[in-house]
């Protein structure tokens, strides 16, 4: 009876007939038969994985689409992480209730997802997820690799216009949308009020210029306390945290036409600022408290920290009574205020099993003018996380629902966010050239002129042979 069940797929049929053959074997097999059967068993053992793989793939094709992310499903001690996980599971459950094509979430720990090899390896093996989250820094890599399915046909045109242009532009190519932002995460400086008070500093001492920032940092720094912390490990995060300082002085890696523009005053002075911060001992060479802002403030080992709006929900969850403040990034002499706006997006795999349904899902989740969609995005930005909404209607609803009533969130919305510029979508070679310049100036103390000249040469060489969507 078993054979009937087995022999449903072409790949499984030989196994079934082999099984049938053994049923009629004589009671005392001859040596030749035993050897023959042993050889057949050996061959079957060797071939079994391939056969099983074939069966697995066949059935998986008909199964749910895989949505890889670093939020859900998971259970954590952190209530904000639980809320984020619930938002994702609710989203997928709602879709699955109303659509034939089912979707399944696959959780990958943030570090493995964001800086590990799991995602690139999966794509290289032709086994990438159907739906996934992409950061601006990775957008071009996936677009140029032919991975991103266009989302525009599944979106309301009004919804495209509803996105803040700065947010959607970096996810578009030739006027078409390929990824939908779910959040906006601006950068600012967080400061620890008890430490400031201990040092006799108050709100009136909040720095507005780079010189003042270094002065205040110097006053706050001791041998066991960092004056101003920023990322020192090489990586996308460090570049992201450094870009706004460069923009403030008019610097750019590429100009508006995509021409390399690294060896300029704006870039050099931003490198010099971070170099001075380390050289004078204001900024430690490695982040204190295992890179945990909250822990560092609570234990008094850091006084100021360059970070993003995502820290607000951490304070709310773990240290609601701890007194901390936020101020906009100070500006250089003659410069203008700019901050960097980060955030992740939904996107669909063009080479996946059902790209149309995957794209439809992304648009349904984040790209329509329906009330449910706007509500859902509002929940993400003000309930599950503490973020600025990437769409005007969502931000408005968030305001109506009191999501920006707290002093800190209002400050982020009204003061920090309006001067923002989206995180650039530079490919890895450009990222690496700038990363090396930042590291060389900041931690090796090399002259900034040499660093910008070297980075300029690397970026120029790359841009000359670059083929793909616009870099800016």
């Amino acid at each position, binding site marked *: 009876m078993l054979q009937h069940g087995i022999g449903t797929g072409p790949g499984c049929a030989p196994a079934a007939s082999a099984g049938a053959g053994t049923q009629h074997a004589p009671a005392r097999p001859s040596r030749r038969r035993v050897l023959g059967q042993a050889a057949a068993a050996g061959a079957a053992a060797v071939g079994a994985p391939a056969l099983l793989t074939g069966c697995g793939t066949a059935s998986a094709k008909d199964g749910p689409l895989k949505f890889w992310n670093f939020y859900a499903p998971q259970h954590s001690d952190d209530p904000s992480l639980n809320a984020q996980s619930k938002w994702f599971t609710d989203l997928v459950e709602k879709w699955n209730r109303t659509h034939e094509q089912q979707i399944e979430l696959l959780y990958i720990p943030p570090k493995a997802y964001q800086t590990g090899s799991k995602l690139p390896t999966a794509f290289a093996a032709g086994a990438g997820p159907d739906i996934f989250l992409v950061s601006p820094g990775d957008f071009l890599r996936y677009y*140029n690799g032919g991975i991103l399915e266009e989302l525009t046909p599944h979106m309301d045109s009004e919804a495209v216009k509803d996105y803040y242009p700065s947010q959607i532009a970096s996810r578009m190519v030739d006027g078409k949308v390929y990824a939908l932002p779910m959040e906006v995460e601006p950068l600012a400086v967080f400061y620890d009020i008890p430490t400031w008070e201990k040092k006799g500093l108050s709100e009136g001492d909040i720095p507005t210029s780079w010189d003042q920032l270094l002065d205040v940092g110097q006053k706050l720094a001791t041998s066991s306390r960092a004056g101003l912390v920023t990322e020192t490990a090489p990586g996308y995060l460090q570049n992201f945290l450094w870009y706004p300082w460069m923009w403030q002085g008019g610097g750019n890696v590429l100009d508006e036409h995509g021409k390399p523009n690294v060896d300029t005053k704006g870039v050099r002075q931003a490198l010099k600022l971070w170099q001075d911060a380390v050289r004078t001992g204001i900024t*430690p060479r490695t982040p204190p408290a295992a890179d945990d802002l909250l822990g560092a403030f609570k234990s008094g080992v850091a006084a100021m920290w360059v970070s993003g709006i995502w820290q607000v929900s951490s304070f709310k969850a773990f240290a609601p009574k701890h007194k901390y403040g936020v101020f906009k990034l100070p500006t250089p002499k003659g410069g203008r205020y700019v901050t960097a706006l980060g955030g992740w997006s939904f996107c669909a795999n063009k080479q996946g099993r059902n790209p149309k349904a995957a794209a439809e899902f992304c648009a349904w989740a984040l790209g329509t003018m329906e009330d449910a969609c706007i509500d859902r995005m509002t929940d993400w930005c003000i309930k599950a996380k503490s973020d600025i909404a990437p769409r005007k209607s969502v931000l408005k609803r968030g305001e109506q629902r009191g999501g920006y009533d707290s002093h800190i969130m209002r400050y982020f919305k009204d003061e920090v966010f309006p001067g923002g510029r989206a995180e650039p979508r530079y490919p890895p070679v450009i990222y690496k050239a700038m990363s090396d310049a930042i590291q060389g100036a900041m931690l090796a103390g090399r002259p900034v002129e040499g660093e910008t000249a070297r980075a300029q040469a690397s970026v120029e060489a790359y841009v000359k042979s670059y083929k793909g969507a616009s870099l800016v």
Partner: protein
Amino acid sequence: MTDTAAEATREPGPGGASGASSTANSGGTGASSRGRTGRRDRPNRMSRKHREWLAAGLFLAPDGLGLLLFVAVPMVLSVVLSFFQVSGFGSYEFIGFGNYERMLNDPLFWQSMKTTGIYVVVLVPVLFVVSLGLGLLVKQKLPGMAVYRTVFFLPYVISLVVVGLLWQFMLDDQVGVVNKAFRAVGLKGESWLGDPSIALFSVIAIFIWVMMGYYMIIFLAGLQEIPQELYEAARIDGAGPWKQFRNITWPLLRPTSFFVLLMSTVAAITGGFELIYVLTQGGPANATSLAIFYIYQQAFVFGEYGYAAAMGTALVLVMIVCSLAIFKITKGGRFDDGE
């Protein structure tokens, strides 16, 4: 009588017994002679030597198959891949030696090779001396020695990721226990992982801490092989500890030393990735970007699989050259022809 027949008659093993039995079963007179003839008539019956070869082959087959599938084939594929430009999303373009040309002109590759060179040159001798020292120490017959052996070996069984995190805390600039100890005795303390002139040596020190227990055990095994009578005779002749070490321990430990030298060199050239990944991400300012880390970065962060394969091939060649050099210099662990 053929050799085969002679062996079958002489040997009382299972094959021989079977042959005798089959001869007996053939019945009739002149069983012995007919038996021999019978064996001649069956040229496919294997000799003991052949059967042993077959058995050895069968025993080795699973390992050989594993090596072929999981080592040899990927290595060949990696070399093939190095001649292609690979997007990471299924597009392969044959570019000949393009990746190798790029490698030769990539300053970061050369910097990573230089860093690897320093890493190997410092790590291998220090690890050798420390492990040998520990091996000599724990060979002493003192109370509680088993505890010391365990303690020294313990770091080796801890995951390198955990080791990395542990040392990251201990080497923290502000609140790390190492800097606190320095400050307690009036010293300034350092940024052990944040200063480009120190970071690589911090990583080396941590790697030595992890590996010393493993090589200590290997040295201990080698030391215990040396006959005690030699030491007793030397002591009677008035040789002190240093003379005993120089004239007995060191020469008789040569095969073990060769093994440790070879293995630690190979491990240093191709290893260290996990620690770098957790501790420094190749920073500060590429100071700890070993070749193996740079290869990883090119493949899995930048998606340059073809270029990474070319660098991987180059690194394997370097490793082979170093291993051959060690073989040549030490004459395969014998160190001189006389021994």
